[in-house]
């Protein structure tokens, strides 16, 4: 039998994000500072270290020292993240707007794909938005039906680890901590590039230009 530590190491080394939703036991385990240290020590052998983001909501494996090859990997990874930002942001806003509760999707939010589907089908503006999102390279859908587009988007997001489907028979998805990581990335870019995104949005709202 594999130990809890071994299981967590395996997930980390497979490139998974560990959060309360995707792996509650593992997340609680890593929350203990002694366990955190131990896992970090193991990872050190492989030039990796245990890293956390979004106020300790997610854990993942990072490189310990960066050589040229590591930098190359990080660079291509970053390009992937940057390319995926816009479709993901549009998707998050679509879900938020169509849910009607005005609450952003965060770790632990449940999304019922059939409810989402019926709302989108009833609202031409959402339909257009979804079609636009599904055409991005991240999702790369060529379906013209809402169902096909939605299914593909959900499938891709589950593959990428942003969503989880706790019960394979039910059309209910739960957002994982990786969504919170995404917000963190946005916030970081906002701060580093001095975009002042929140202020832009606020002034747009005050000017009444609806997004």
């Amino acid at each position, binding site marked *: 039998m594999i130990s809890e530590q071994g299981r967590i190491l395996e997930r980390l080394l497979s490139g998974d994000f560990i959060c309360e939703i995707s792996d509650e036991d593992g997340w609680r385990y890593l929350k203990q500072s002694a366990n955190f240290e131990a896992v970090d020590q193991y990872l050190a052998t492989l030039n990796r270290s245990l890293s956390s983001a979004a106020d300790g909501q997610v854990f*993942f*494996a990072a490189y310990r020292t960066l050589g040229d090859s590591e930098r190359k990997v*990080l660079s291509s990874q970053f390009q992937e993240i940057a390319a995926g930002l816009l479709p993901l942001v549009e998707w998050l806003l679509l879900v*938020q707007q169509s849910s009607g509760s*005005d609450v952003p999707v965060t770790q632990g939010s449940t999304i019922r794909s059939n409810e989402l589907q019926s709302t989108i089908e009833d609202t031409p503006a959402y339909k257009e938005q979804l079609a636009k999102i599904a055409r991005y390279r991240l999702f790369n859908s060529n379906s013209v039906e809402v169902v096909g587009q939605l299914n593909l988007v959900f499938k891709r997001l589950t593959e990428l680890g942003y969503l989880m489907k706790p019960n394979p028979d039910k059309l209910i998805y739960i957002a994982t901590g990786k969504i919170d990581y995404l917000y963190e990335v946005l*916030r970081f870019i906002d701060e580093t590039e001095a975009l002042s*995104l929140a202020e832009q949005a606020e002034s747009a709202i005050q000017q009444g230009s609806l997004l």
Partner: protein
Amino acid sequence: MNQNLHQAGVKLLNALSRNADLIMQVYLSGTLHESEASPGVIDNLKKLGVLWRPEPGAPLRLKKAIRNLLEGSLHDERNRQIDTNIGSALASLKTLAQHYKEALHNHRYAEAQAHLNDLAEHVYALAESLANSVRTLFSRINNEFGYVASIDAKIRENELAQSQVSELLSQLEMFRFDELSEVAGGLRELRHLLVVALQQSFSRCTQELSMAQSRLLELLGRFREFRGRTRLLKGFLLHMEQQPDFVPANYANHSQVPALFNLAKPLLQPAAVDVNRVDHEQDLLLLVGRIKALHRTEKPHDEERNAQAIDVESQGQVELDDKAIHQAVEAYFCEVIDTGKRLTALQYLTSQALEFDPEVWIYQVIGGYQGLAEEDRQYFALEPEIEDHPIFTGNKIVRDVELGLR
């Protein structure tokens, strides 16, 4: 008088129960649609003080007292009003306590009892209103201000609730238990009411209020977080609309890579099977058993079994070159006719120095004779020169044929 009051109360309550549907409908919708009820019923309810018309021309509404009764008993969370007027309640408590003490001092016990009842009523009412206020606050917190949709509205509601909490807390500071105990003096009943009962409800209330306050702050933080995130998302979208070619600098190339973007590459691949491990044997056997019996042994590569290009073309026609021999047979027949002499086939063959095999030639001559039309054949006579087979009796061998005219 008391009897009258009793009767009037019963009448009022009966009227309420008779018109329960109507009253609940008014309670839920806020106003009465006068067309839906008969004028007699409406007049009656107006007279009893259940319904009233705030302004001429305005629709009829429920009286505040009835509304309060319903809100209180139904624990309806729509009630968002909090009575924070504790100061005046305290003042009236003190006044009533003075009345009671004075009556007691003058030995007017009946009057004193009445004052005490009144005072008890007030104390309990104050305690109840405090408990109610806290309860409504909590019900709003528990459903996270679910009655308003947008986050901004939730934040406003939260701020209102916070101000109500601090108002309540500052009002609670007006409880001066040293003063109250002085007022109560040595009187047991008064002390019980003013000090014990009030203090109990006071401590419960302050405790719950401080909890409510922290929950409210927590909620406010969450709402602000939500709002921040929404703005972040919308702001990013706006920014991308304005500068569609925006690409963040590649932070991975910085000398200090931010921890956020330091994601190690997936490393682990599935492990391979180790067939030499004894403790895995059972599982491996199971796996092997599940493999369908397909014996596809790898065959050695066979060049000739390879598919080859096939040329499909029309076959050259094979022509039997039987013309020469036919002509020779015809010439032979003509020779016989021309000379009118008998001539054997082999003699003709040698005389003409033809290159046919003698056996084939003889066959062809016999065939040529048989192939003639019946009337033509009558002009010829064909006589074979036959000898017996040397070993097998009964078998004849045609050595030659002689052709002559009849």
